[in-house]
């Protein structure tokens, strides 16, 4: 066993210096505040600045390694991830998961046209999967596409689409054949500027608008914009959703845990610092243990992925572990702050301007999105442990 990351040799100091200088010179000054999760600016000007920033990163060969075609060695990848992480502004715009679907199922023309533009940040994408009546039971989606000459005519309503208000393209699922369950669903590339597409930003419990509703009214999508074969959208989707779930929580929650320690030092319980309270110490330590295990589970997944041994329960495990620990840490952070825990962003007395309150509210995005944790438990039980399926309508 070995999980140590090799030291970056001194010969890379110059590379790190160049990345750092580039970031300092080009990093946009945004109106949006840095917050937990996948957050989207409210201000179109921020979006223009971000587009310019991502394009500049790409032109300089410093695009985010996770979604770039640039060949980097492992040390460069690490340096780039570290330095871009420190920048504190998004380096990937929109939902780039369609890239996985196009790579696996796209035509040569689709690959040649879309992939480089996803990587360069030229195209912002959104995902058009969930519907008001089709969340966990995604296969019951109601959006319909009927073939009319060289195009599909699509009608329906989508929800929970991040970045849709600023997106160029949408990764869309619609039913094109009247069959039961997942069969008969088709995956499309939707040009968001097509006539009949209406995007309405959706304000969430956080007070911010990180998602949208998208209405599709007689929208014509050319047949060449089908990803994979018509009626086989489910296979396309399964591949990219697995990618989405596996990506979260591969590192620990060290920063939040350190935050708890700092809150506990600064707040009093019965006249003494909370950090001296045995119950507080026990709780923080339990979170720290689970955070450390989260990191070890990340090693486990990376090892299995490298050996091509990932099973159907592995991504759900990581997703549940990360999202539930994240929720519990943020819930506790509020109670640890005492009455001030009930303050929020904007009040001068709020701890770190309400950072934990926002993270507490946003935490539910992780336990619900990308397949709710209940669906994840079904996947573990049925596909991982081989338990019989429950009766479904």
């Amino acid at each position, binding site marked *: *066993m*070995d999980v140590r990351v090799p030291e970056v040799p001194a010969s890379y100091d110059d590379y790190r210096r160049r990345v750092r200088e580039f970031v300092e010179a080009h990093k946009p000054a945004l109106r949006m505040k840095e917050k937990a999760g996948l957050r989207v600016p409210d201000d179109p000007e921020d979006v223009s600045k971000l587009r310019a920033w991502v394009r500049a990163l790409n032109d300089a060969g410093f695009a985010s390694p996770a979604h770039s075609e640039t060949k980097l060695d492992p040390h460069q990848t690490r340096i780039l991830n570290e330095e871009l992480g420190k920048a504190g502004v998004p380096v990937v715009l929109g939902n780039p998961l369609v890239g996985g679907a196009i790579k696996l199922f796209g035509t040569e023309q689709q690959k040649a046209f879309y992939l480089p533009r996803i990587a360069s940040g030229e195209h912002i994408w959104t995902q058009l999967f969930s519907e008001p009546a089709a969340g966990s039971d995604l296969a019951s989606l109601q959006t319909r596409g009927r073939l009319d000459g060289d195009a599909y005519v699509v009608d329906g309503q989508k929800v929970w689409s991040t970045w849709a208000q600023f997106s160029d393209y949408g990764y869309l699922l619609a039913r094109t054949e009247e069959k039961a369950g997942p069969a008969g669903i088709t995956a499309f590339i939707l040009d968001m500027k097509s006539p009949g597409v209406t995007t309405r930003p959706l304000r969430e419990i956080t007070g911010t608008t990180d998602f949208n509703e998208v209405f599709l009214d007689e929208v014509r999508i050319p047949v060449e914009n089908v990803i994979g074969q018509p009626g086989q959208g489910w296979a396309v989707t399964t591949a990219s959703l697995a990618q989405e779930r596996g990506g979260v929580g591969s590192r620990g929650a060290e920063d939040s845990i350190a935050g708890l320690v700092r809150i506990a030092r600064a707040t009093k319980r019965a006249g003494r610092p909370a950090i001296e309270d045995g119950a507080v110490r026990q709780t*923080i330590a339990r979170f*720290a*243990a689970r955070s450390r295990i989260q990191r*070890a589970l990340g090693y486990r997944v990376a090892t299995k992925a490298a050996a091509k041994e990932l099973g159907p329960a592995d991504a759900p495990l990581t997703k*549940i572990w990360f999202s539930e620990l994240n929720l519990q840490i943020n819930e506790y952070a509020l109670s640890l702050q005492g009455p001030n825990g009930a303050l929020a962003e904007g009040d001068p007395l709020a701890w770190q301007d309400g950072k934990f309150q926002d993270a507490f509210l946003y935490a539910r995005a992780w336990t619900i999105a990308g397949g709710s944790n209940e669906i994840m438990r079904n996947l573990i039980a049925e596909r*991982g442990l081989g338990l019989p*399926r429950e009766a479904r309508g």
Partner: protein
Amino acid sequence: MNFAYDEDQRLLKETTRRFLEERHPLAALRPNLETDTTLDRAVWRDGAQLGWTAMLAPAENDGGSVSEQPIVDLIALAEELGRVLYPGPFLPANVVADTLARGGDEAQRKDWLAPLVRGERIAAWCATGDGTADASAIAVTATPAEGGMRLDGRARWVHDAHAADFLLVACRAPQGETLALVPLPASGVGVRVLKGLDLTRRFCEVTFSGVQVSSDALLGAPGSAAPALARMGSLASVIQAGEAVGAMEKLFELTVQHAKDRVQFGRAIGSFQAIKHRLADLWIELEGARAAAHYAALALADELSDREQAVATAGCYVREAASQLAGESLQIHGGVGFTWEYDVHLFLRRAKADQVLYGDPSWHAERLCRLLEADVKEA
């Protein structure tokens, strides 16, 4: 990145599993659940030949490991032993072997370590007076005496002391914490087998009254044992975590199988979400415990800078997860899980005993919190 057993370690696990299936399956415990000993010396000796006691000892004392990370080899073995709730002194034997290998002089290694490694002599580890992990709980005093020391006091929760050929005793000398070797039988040593909740293993209370120990039976200078004691505690916790993960794995397999086989309301109970989600949660806890145990073993083996945090993490998480998994597994088994005949209670009893031995979860959590405080600077 490789966070999995290597080829040789997998082979070691397979060999051990086959050996145990043949020589000491879970069923072999049944006749001895209520007797004074659960140890089969012939199986122990043959296990020693398979490397159970050899990993942490040098080759010149008949030791040798499978990989460059002997502590990882050890938990690979521990998992297999845990699967059958193997009762013998695997944990104390390796703690004692490690202590002798690191702190024993040449004669001590030859006279005490080598026979232990070969499985000829059984070692028991007298850690504290109450079974907790605190050095402050050491309840044996060592008083300077003619040619060495005199030991008085007691140690509790000493695994298989009733079957031991010698003891490694943590004691308090005027100079501080000290380790002494006591061959058995010895005048002034009393051993009482404790009646425990765990029916699979035997733990003892060992009393010392005026027990003479010659200077050549002391490990290092009197008062110099504190670092060794800390190491022994960490190692014990990691080995115990390995055994616990093996036991969790086996019990979980039994429980999933039960959920597939047991039919109520015309359906396998494993098709009901109430059972299914519970099993999914137990699997998550099992994988979490496994990751914690593996990382702790790795951190200790490679002396990583966060090894103390890693041991404390396994120390609090695995103990609680194992106990949780055992209790829930019994619940999922329903009525049959409540019978003496089914093995579930043996796992539950083992898990509850493990939960409080070598530091209970809150002891390890407190340790983790102290380490965390030292790591977190002010923003």
